[in-house]
């Protein structure tokens, strides 16, 4: 039995089912992070002038955050191009561009964990240290988990183009369906980038 509307559009929504599903999921993710942004606003307004702003108080260097921003935006661009190549059935180029996305994800995690988190933990700055650090670790940590999860999903879809991988069945039977799955993963990836676009100025610059 074949699942309907995995490639063809539904007559009522005008799109295939997975696309509507991923947009609804993204809506829930927006509300999830909206709650955290609301908590951030509460904490910052409540602290007033006591909210740490400068490096001496926050111990947040700007350059790792800036580098992470560049990395994620580049990965978003690479994600779009990878999806385009898969739609054009240029599998090798799809693998190259998807590899670039995964490399950017790895770079992001290395910068986040190795350059930002590790020195702070070594210096004794934990989530329990202050409200600033608790919201910082919570929001950036949750965002990092989203990066990790998105990278795992994209890796799976990238491996589906290899014959030795069990998921190759989808690509062999219906390449358009795999392209649609990659598009869903790509939409999630762009949302992760979107969230970081707002996290970076809130914590590092403002």
């Amino acid at each position, binding site marked *: 039995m074949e699942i309907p509307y995995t490639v063809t559009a539904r007559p009522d929504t005008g*799109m295939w089912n997975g696309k*509507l599903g991923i947009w609804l999921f993204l809506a829930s993710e927006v509300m999830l992070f909206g709650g955290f942004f609301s908590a951030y606003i509460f904490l910052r307004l409540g602290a007033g002038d006591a909210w740490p702003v400068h490096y001496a108080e926050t111990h947040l260097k700007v350059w790792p955050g800036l580098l992470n921003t560049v990395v994620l*935006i*580049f990965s978003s*661009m690479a994600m779009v191009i990878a999806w385009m190549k898969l739609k054009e059935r*240029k599998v090798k180029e799809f693998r190259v561009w998807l590899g670039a996305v995964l490399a950017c994800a790895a770079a992001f995690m290395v910068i986040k964990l190795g350059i930002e988190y590790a020195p702070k933990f070594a210096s004794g700055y934990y989530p329990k240290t202050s409200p600033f650090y608790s919201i910082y670790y919570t929001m950036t940590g949750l965002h990092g988990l989203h990066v990790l999860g998105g990278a795992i999903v994209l890796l799976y879809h990238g491996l589906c183009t290899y014959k030795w991988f069990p998921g190759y069945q989808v690509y062999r039977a219906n390449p358009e369906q795999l392209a649609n799955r990659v598009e869903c993963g790509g939409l999630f990836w*762009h949302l992760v980038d979107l969230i970081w676009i707002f996290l*970076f100025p809130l914590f590092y*610059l*403002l």
Partner: protein
Amino acid sequence: MAHAATDHEHHGPSNPVTKWMAGVWSSWENLFGMIGLTGESRRVVAVFALLMVFTVLTWGAYWVDTQFGDNQVGATDLTIGLLIATAKATFVLAFFMHMIHEQRTVYRVMLFTAFFFVALLGLNTCAFLDTPPLAKPMITDNPYKAHEAHGKGHGDHGDHAAHGDHADHGGDPAQPHGASSPAHADYDEATHGGHGKAQLSEEGYTDKIQPEAATADEVQPGGIVAPTEPAADEPDAEESR
């Protein structure tokens, strides 16, 4: 006009600036062709370049503020930062997520989400800003003088008898608050402005508020003041409770 167009086709652009721009564009086209980017991919790369420009603008605004501005986060800094972030988010949504080509169903879903997102942030912020700040004790260099000033000013209140046991401890700042904990004394201080109540223990007082005399060593990140250790000759706060 056709003759001029023919001239242009045969001899190319005559303006040196236009010539230079055509050369740059053909170089980019060669580069894009070398790495396999054609058509729609080039628009994606152009959007990426624009996002990089916005990122540099964001950092630039921060750098200018730190170097030449007041180095404080004000309404202007917040507005500029969030405006640039919103512009970047718009381009990512429109071109990377293909919102400009999507169905109406997606627009309805996103509109619904945006409404509740704005409501979540906006209503909470408005509620917070509408809440009056909690009453705080007057902060001076000598907390005991501040306490005495409050006690003299509110000595005629009718409910003073309810706090009659306070008078027994009137002269000794180190004496604990009768049988009550220092937390009770703080409640009186915060809500009733101190109706001639007993003196607060030094440990309970400094634990609750941030005195102006706090040094940089005492202030931890986030504005939290580390509780001061009681001196060796003072009664232990835990034992007195």
